[in-house]
């Protein structure tokens, strides 16, 4: 049986746009063809998780059944106006358990043959946890298994996001757009599609497939440079090339996922907003992998600080925010994978944002003495860009290769 990985080659785009044609015609006439849309979604899920990837397919099915049972049981429990914290915590732990097992498995020897993982498990877990948290808060009151499945398994974003929100998704799904709005959506969808081609298959390809192997080779050749640390101009070149590759590849992929969503009348939120013109680290996280960082902001950072302040466990607000940044970025690091460089990447960003906050407070107190002009603005962007690229050098795992 054939297997097609999402957005991987021209065939995939040809098939997807052909398959979605009836959906588009339906939406043009203001109707969502629910049954057809569900069937075509299953076809694309089978294309991605079938064939020689069938083991992933089985893992996805098992995972989905497990999550549906958890969520529907909790919805039923909340419906009876019951709301115990222990029950809520137990459900969150159960919900992230499959992901934790998948992330920890590589640490054990002889783990081959045991695999619960599938493409996109990290991204689906954000959706399952989000729904449980909103059920707890009461912002999601009613949930049906069918709506939940549509949200969870929405195929354009299943492999790597962007991470949508349940209530936002359902609003789009249940209310087909007016013709004028849908035509605007198509307009954007086409634009995003071609922007995606430019990003992923021209720029991402150039940096990732052409330049990256060259600088990798050159930088590895300098292993003994600078007293054995391997620090060389080529390493610097690697840092910039990798950072640009990472951006164009991932932003390109995200644009494809958003484009296909828009064709289907679902306005999946954007993932990138010119991250390299950020003028500080805080600003950067409002522009880079936005659906991930906003998820962390809303479901980790804000809840953690809320919880601590409500119980008055810590008085000093500066300390609370610093602690919350550490927790936030450490979890983000572990989410990427249990390796030293992802965890250091998380710690690095936590430290950077804490220093950033000190600076912002200092600046606020000395507003009259600190100059602000075009030059300082460019300097801020330049500094932020370099700090971010350095963090991506850590993230790339190249230092692991260079040093160990």
């Amino acid at each position, binding site marked *: 049986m054939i297997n097609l990985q999402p957005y991987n080659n021209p065939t995939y785009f040809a098939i997807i746009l052909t398959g979605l044609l009836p959906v588009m015609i339906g939406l043009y006439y203001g109707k969502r063809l629910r049954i057809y849309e569900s069937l075509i979604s299953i076809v694309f899920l089978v294309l991605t998780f079938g064939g020689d990837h069938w083991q992933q397919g089985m893992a996805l099915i098992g995972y989905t059944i497990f999550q549906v049972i958890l969520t529907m049981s909790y919805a039923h429990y909340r419906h009876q106006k019951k709301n115990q914290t222990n029950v809520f915590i137990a459900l969150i732990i159960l919900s992230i358990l499959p992901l934790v097992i998948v992330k920890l498995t590589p640490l054990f020897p002889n783990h081959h043959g045991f695999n619960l993982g599938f493409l996109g498990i990290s991204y689906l877990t954000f959706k399952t946890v989000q729904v449980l*948290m909103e059920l707890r*808060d009461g912002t999601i009151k009613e949930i049906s298994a069918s709506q939940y499945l549509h949200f969870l398994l929405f195929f354009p974003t299943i492999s790597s996001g962007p991470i949508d929100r349940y209530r936002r998704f359902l609003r789009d799904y249940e209310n087909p757009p007016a013709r004028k709005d849908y035509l605007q959506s198509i307009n954007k969808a086409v634009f995003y599609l071609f922007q995606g081609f430019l990003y992923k298959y021209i720029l991402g390809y150039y940096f990732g497939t052409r330049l990256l192997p060259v600088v990798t080779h050159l930088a590895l050749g300098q292993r003994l440079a600078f007293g054995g640390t391997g620090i060389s101009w080529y390493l610097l070149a690697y840092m910039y090339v990798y950072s640009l590759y990472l951006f164009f590849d991932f932003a390109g992929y995200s644009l494809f996922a958003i484009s296909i969503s828009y064709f289907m009348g679902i306005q999946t939120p954007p993932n990138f907003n010119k991250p390299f013109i950020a003028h500080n680290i805080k600003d950067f996280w409002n522009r880079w992998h936005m659906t991930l960082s906003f998820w962390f902001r809303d479901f980790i950072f*804000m809840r953690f600080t809320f919880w601590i302040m409500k119980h008055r466990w810590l008085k000093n607000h500066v300390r609370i925010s610093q602690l919350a940044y550490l927790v936030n970025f450490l979890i983000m690091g572990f989410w990427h994978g249990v390796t030293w460089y992802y965890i250091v990447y998380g710690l690095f960003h936590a430290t950077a944002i804490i220093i950033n906050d000190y600076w912002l407070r200092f600046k606020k107190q000395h507003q009259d003495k600190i100059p602000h002009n075009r030059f300082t603005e460019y300097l801020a962007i330049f500094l932020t860009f370099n700090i971010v690229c350095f963090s991506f050098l850590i993230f790339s795992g190249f230092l692991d290769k260079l040093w160990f």
Partner: protein
Amino acid sequence: MTDTEKIYQILKDLTDEDFSDKGDTNLFETGLLDSMATVQLLLEIQTELNVDVPVSEFERSEWATPNKIIAKVQTLK
């Protein structure tokens, strides 16, 4: 104090700025409120106005200006 006055007072404590005559200022785009200050805002609304706002209820675009905050608090009352 009316609810509106209370909200202006809370915002003033958090940002050192008086918004009574600039109720349409975008608090997030201008960087006046960050996530930390937002959490403080929600907690203050809870204690001062007795309105329970779960974090899930907080959607930035719906809470972006002092006027929007006032309107939102009224609907949650």
